[in-house]
């Protein structure tokens, strides 16, 4: 973990309100797994005050470059979307524990299920699983076709199913509607998305080995403030976990949802 002044390399709009930004800096050298995140200070002023947690969507340690993909919705992410190549930004990271690539063996199949802005960290995960010889199936859920991004990038890494709530692209409905259609055997699943989706995914694949990445509103991002706790299920020894430092990725069943 370090605080780095990273340099914006590029900024591009991918779809409705969704932006992809490339950043360069020494921080990249410390990333250890896909699914870790960074805590970004979008301005040097004190308004907006807090950092914004954003997942690392891809990284290249040789180039010291990483990619983030985010939705410009509120005040902080809107300011983020106005940065241009060459701008400097205060980035804290890498934070947290990402998806365990080791949990799926070469030759096995993994299902990666993402919803909305939960999709980005699955991209680096799929790249690493592919590299290892794991077959990846991607199920990506969005509100509508205008919100879809990185479909082509994922397709290059494995079968990719899209679900949209309004039916404007792919299957009409939720990722779980696609999950029901997949008949193949698989070893593990990995998922990132909004809480109701994670809940549905865990229920649908109950009994399967899976890893879920959670979101919570954060203060410090490093485990000191107790803002981001989740209660654990009864069968876990600790009463709570912190999303920022114990997670954001937990094995299915750990967090009570």
């Amino acid at each position, binding site marked *: 973990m370090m605080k780095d002044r990273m340099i914006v390399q590029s900024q591009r709009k991918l779809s409705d309100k969704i932006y992809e930004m490339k950043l360069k800096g020494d921080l990249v050298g410390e990333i250890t797994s896909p699914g870790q995140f960074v805590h970004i200070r979008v301005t040097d002023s004190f308004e907006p*005050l807090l950092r914004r947690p954003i997942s690392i969507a891809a990284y290249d340690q040789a180039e010291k470059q990483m990619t983030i993909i985010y939705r410009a919705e509120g005040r902080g992410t809107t300011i983020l979307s106005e940065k241009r190549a060459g701008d400097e930004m205060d980035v804290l990271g890498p934070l947290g524990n990402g998806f365990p690539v080791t949990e799926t063996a070469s030759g096995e199949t993994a299902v990666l299920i993402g919803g909305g802005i939960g999709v980005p960290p699955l991209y680096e995960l799929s790249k690493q699983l592919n590299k290892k010889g794991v077959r990846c199936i991607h199920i990506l859920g969005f509100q509508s076709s205008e919100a879809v991004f990185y479909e082509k990038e994922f397709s290059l890494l494995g079968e990719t199913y899209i679900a949209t709530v309004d039916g404007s692209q792919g299957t009409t409905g939720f990722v779980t509607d696609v999950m029901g259609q997949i008949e193949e055997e698989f070893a593990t699943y990995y998922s990132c998305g909004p809480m109701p989706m994670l809940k549905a995914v865990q229920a649908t694949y109950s009994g399967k080995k899976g890893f879920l990445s959670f979101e919570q509103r954060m*203060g410090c991002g490093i485990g*000191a403030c*107790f803002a981001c706790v989740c209660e654990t299920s009864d069968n876990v020894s600790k009463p709570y976990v912190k999303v920022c430092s114990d997670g954001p990725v937990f094995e299915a069943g750990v967090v009570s949802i």
Partner: protein
Amino acid sequence: MNRLSVDLPGLQLKNPIMPASGCFGFGKEYGMLYDLSILGAIMIKATTLETRFGNPTPRVAETASGMLNAIGLQNPGLDGVMKEELPWLEQFDVPIIANVAGTETADYVEVAKTISTAPNVKALELNISCPNVKCGGITFGTDPEQAYELTAAVKAVSTVPVYVKLSPNVTDIKEIAKAVEAAGADGITMINTLVGMRLDRKTGRPIIANVTGGLSGPAIKPVAIRMVYEVSQVVEIPIIGMGGVSETDDVIDFLSSGASAVAVGTANFVDPFICPTIIEELPVKLDELGVEHISEIVGRSHRL
């Protein structure tokens, strides 16, 4: 001579800068970023008699130049703090100020009695001002009589000096300050958070699961400065000031208003290196102000 040294009851501080309670856990996380021995002191997270899980999430929400929190005093309980957290902190050459919380006098007394015996705990900070717990906490902080009683009860058992942390959510903070001074408090820490609220724009419902939360950060600094200015003129005991400190100039403001030392809360989340940065910059500021020792600016806002 150390230009930044500050001597307070129980506390020989290398410098007047310390992280505020609840914004630094028990030091482990920030300890991964820098050497905690450089700090003036550390105010650890509130300790209660029993383990507390705290409030449901969301527990934080951002506001204009500030944030709301309703953590609800989550902590491992007296036992855990005594056995794990405080011993871990012993590796650093830094005095610990233990923030003591509870729901009734008996808990406060029991926590105070035990925690004050830990070798690195040099002072207690009696938290009578937490707005985020249903009973106890803030009710002690808004009534001068209750504040007096509790302070006296804790003073009777503590083996180290007792600082009382005041709530800003009162009509007249001077009264509470005078009451705790009369009860034997060795110092005052102020301010805790202002009670506030933020609504979700779509649903109109409170974002914080606990409904209300404590407002901290730069937004509250003017209120904090005013209160330190007022209280420092009616009590003899020293004040550790806080509320929105985010840069070195803010420290100068708090000292000028009458505080003898300064705690940094929310700003740690914005910049995890803020405490070391301020400590490094303070001597430069003193030079700019033409001041040899930091104590010279304490209270200059109202000194003749």
